[in-house]
C-alpha cells in the first residue's frame, strides 16, 4: 500500500491507536438510525412493521460491514509519533491531516476514561496547545500506554534528554487536596443554580399546562429544563466526585469523576489566572471554589469546594511565589463610586503585591481574581462619560487565557498610575518566570519541599 508509514527511516517510530478504536467509529451509523427512530417514532414503527425479515437481513448485512470497514480504515490511517520536540499525528481517510504539536508549547495533557472505555481498559489522551481551537486527541490508547505516553510527552516537554525521556517514567505525585463526597454533596445543595433550575423545571411546564393543555408542548419545554437541572446538580456531583489535586515535578495533577475518570496534568508556569469564588450560602462554612485558566484549555475548575485555607494553599502552589492577598490588603473603590454602581461598589477592590495583581467584586457571591504580573499581555483603562463625571475609571488586564481581570471604579488618578505601574511590573515580572522547558536550563531546581 502506498500509504504505508515510513518505518524507522528517520529514527521516528510511528504508532497506531489501540485496536478497539474501530468499535467507537462503528457506533456512528447505529446512533444515526436510533436518532431517526426516536425523532419520528410513529413512522419508525410503521416502517419497521413493513420490513420483512429478508430486507432487514440485507440491510444489516450491508450496514454493519460498511460501518466496520469505515471504522477499520480510519483506525488504519491514523498514526502518531513522538519526536524530540513534537508529537505528530497523521490521520484522515479522504482528507489527510497532519498535526505537529510542539511540546514546549504544551499547556496541559488530559487522560480521560469514559465509562465504557474503563470496562475495555482504554483511555483518551487530550492535548491543549495555544492557538488551537479544538483539543487534539488520541483516542483510544491502552490504559498503560496512555499513561506512559503522557509521562513521555511531559518528560520531553520538560526538557529531559531524548534518550532518557522514555525511561524517566511517571513523576511521583503528592496529593495536596481531596474533596470528600459528603462535602461536595452539601456544597452542591447549598448552590443556588440547581435549585433555580429545578424550580423553573417544575414551574414553567406547570404554567404551560394550564395555559395550553397540550402535553407535547409541556414535554418539549420540560425535558430540556429537567436535563439542565440534572447536569447542574447530579451531573456535577458525578463529574466532580473524588476530586483530587496532586503535585508532581510535571506540574499539577487533577483527577476526578465517578463514571468517567479524568486525569489532567497542567505543567508548571502555565496557569494564567486563578479565580476564587465564594457563593453566599457557602460563607457560613468558609468554603470556596477555585477556578484556573490555562491558555488553550477549556477545563477551568481547580477545586470544586474546599475550606478557604486549603484552597489558598493550593493556589500558592499553582502560582509559586504568589500569596492570595488578605482582605485587609485590598483598597476599596472611592465612596463616590456609589453613584455609578449602587451597593455593589462596596465589593470592588484591588490589591497589588510584588508578584501578582488581584481584583475582587461581588457582594453576595464574592469573587477574587489573581493574575501574576508575568502573565499580563496588555493593560487598558476605560472611562465612560458618567464615570468621568465622578472621576473614576476601570482598569482591565488581559491575559493569554482569553480572560480579562477587571478592577472597576478606581479613582481616575489612581487608575492612571496603576496602568503605568502595571505595564512596568508585567514587563519585569517575566524575568523571574520559569522557562518553558521547566526541567532544563540553569534554573533547574527541585519541586517544592514537602
Amino acid at each position, binding site marked *: 500500500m502506498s500509504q504505508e508509514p515510513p518505518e524507522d527511516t528517520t529514527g521516528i517510530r510511528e504508532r497506531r491507536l489501540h485496536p478497539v478504536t474501530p468499535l467507537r467509529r462503528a457506533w456512528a451509523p447505529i446512533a444515526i438510525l436510533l436518532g431517526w427512530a426516536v425523532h419520528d417514532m410513529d413512522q419508525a414503527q410503521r416502517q419497521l412493521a413493513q420490513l420483512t425479515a429478508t430486507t432487514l437481513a440485507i440491510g444489516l448485512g450491508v450496514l454493519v460491514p460498511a460501518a466496520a470497514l469505515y471504522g477499520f480504515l480510519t483506525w488504519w490511517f491514523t498514526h502518531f509519533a513522538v519526536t524530540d520536540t513534537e508529537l505528530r499525528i497523521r490521520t484522515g481517510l479522504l482528507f489527510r491531516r497532519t498535526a505537529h504539536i510542539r511540546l514546549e508549547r504544551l499547556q496541559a495533557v488530559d487522560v480521560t476514561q469514559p465509562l465504557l472505555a474503563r470496562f475495555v481498559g482504554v483511555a483518551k489522551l487530550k492535548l491543549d496547545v*495555544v492557538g488551537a481551537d479544538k483539543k487534539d486527541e488520541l483516542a483510544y490508547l491502552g490504559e498503560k500506554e496512555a499513561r506512559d505516553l503522557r509521562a513521555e510527552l511531559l518528560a520531553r516537554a520538560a526538557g529531559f534528554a531524548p534518550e532518557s525521556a522514555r525511561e524517566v517514567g511517571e513523576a511521583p505525585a503528592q496529593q495536596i487536596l481531596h474533596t470528600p463526597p459528603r462535602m461536595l454533596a452539601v456544597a452542591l445543595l447549598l448552590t443556588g443554580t440547581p435549585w433555580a433550575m429545578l424550580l423553573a423545571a417544575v414551574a414553567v411546564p406547570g404554567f404551560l399546562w394550564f395555559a395550553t393543555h397540550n402535553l407535547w408542548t409541556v414535554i418539549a419545554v420540560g425535558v430540556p429544563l429537567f436535563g439542565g437541572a440534572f447536569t447542574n446538580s447530579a451531573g456535577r456531583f458525578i463529574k466532580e466526585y473524588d476530586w483530587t489535586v496532586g503535585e508532581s515535578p510535571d506540574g499539577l495533577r487533577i483527577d476526578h469523576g465517578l463514571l468517567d475518570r479524568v486525569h489532567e496534568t497542567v505543567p508548571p508556569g*502555565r496557569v*494564567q489566572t486563578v479565580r476564587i469564588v465564594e457563593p453566599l450560602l457557602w460563607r457560613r462554612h468558609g468554603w470556596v471554589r477555585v477556578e484556573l485558566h490555562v*491558555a488553550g484549555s477549556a477545563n477551568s475548575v481547580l477545586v470544586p469546594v474546599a475550606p478557604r485555607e486549603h484552597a489558598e494553599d493550593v493556589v500558592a502552589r499553582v502560582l509559586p511565589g504568589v500569596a492570595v492577598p488578605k482582605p485587609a490588603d485590598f483598597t476599596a473603590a472611592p465612596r463616590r463610586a456609589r453613584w455609578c454602581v449602587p451597593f455593589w461598589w462596596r465589593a470592588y477592590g484591588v490589591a497589588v503585591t510584588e508578584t501578582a495583581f488581584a481584583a475582587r467584586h461581588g457582594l453576595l457571591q464574592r469573587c477574587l481574581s489573581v493574575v501574576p504580573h*508575568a*502573565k499580563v*499581555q*496588555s*493593560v*487598558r*483603562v*476605560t*472611562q*465612560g*462619560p458618567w464615570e*468621568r463625571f465622578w472621576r473614576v475609571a476601570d482598569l*482591565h488586564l*488581559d*491575559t*493569554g487565557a*482569553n480572560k*480579562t481581570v477587571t478592577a472597576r471604579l478606581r479613582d481616575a488618578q489612581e487608575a*492612571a498610575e496603576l*496602568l*503605568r*505601574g*502595571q*505595564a*512596568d511590573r*508585567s*514587563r*519585569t515580572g*517575566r*524575568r523571574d518566570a520559569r522557562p*518553558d522547558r521547566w526541567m532544563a536550563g540553569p534554573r533547574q531546581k527541585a519541586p517544592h519541599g514537602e
Partner: protein
Amino acid sequence: MPVGAPSVTSSVTSSETEPAWTGLPPGLLKLRRLLLVLWLVPLTVAVGVLLQILAGPAWAAFALIPLALLLWGWPMLGRNWRSWRYAERADDLLLSRGVLWHEETIVPYGRMQLVEVTSGPLERKFGLASLQLHTAAAATDATIPGLAPAEAERLRDRLTELGEARSAGL
C-alpha cells in the same frame, strides 16, 4: 533575557515623564467626513423629496433629522480623530483614544505575537493604512487606524524588531 539594568532606569524615567504622543495624519478625518457627507446628503435629499411628494410639506421636515446628524457628526468626527494618539516608549506602546468613552491601552513589546498592516480599497485611495497589534490575549484591541503607509510600515518593522528583542512568550 537581554533586558538589563539600563532599560529599568529608562522605563522609570519614561513612566514619570509624559511620553511623546503622536497623532494621526489628517487623511483619516477627510475620509470619514467624506463618507459622512456621501451617506447623509443623499439621504436628506431623498427623505425630503419623497415625503414632499407623498405626504406633504409638513412631513418633509423629517429630512431635517439626517441634516442635523450631518451637522452634529462633522465636529464629532473631528473630536474623535483628535483623540486618537499613540506613543512609543522604551518598552511598550501606548494607545489612547475616544472622547466620551475614553480608553488607554499599554502593550509591552515583548508580548506582541503579530503586527499587521491592513489597507482596504477606500483607505488605499486616500493613502492610508491601519496597524493592528495582536498579543496572546484576544481581548487586546490595539489598532491604529489611518496611518500613512510609510509610517505604518516603519512602525511595523520597529515593533517587530523590538518584540523580538524582548520576546517573552506566554
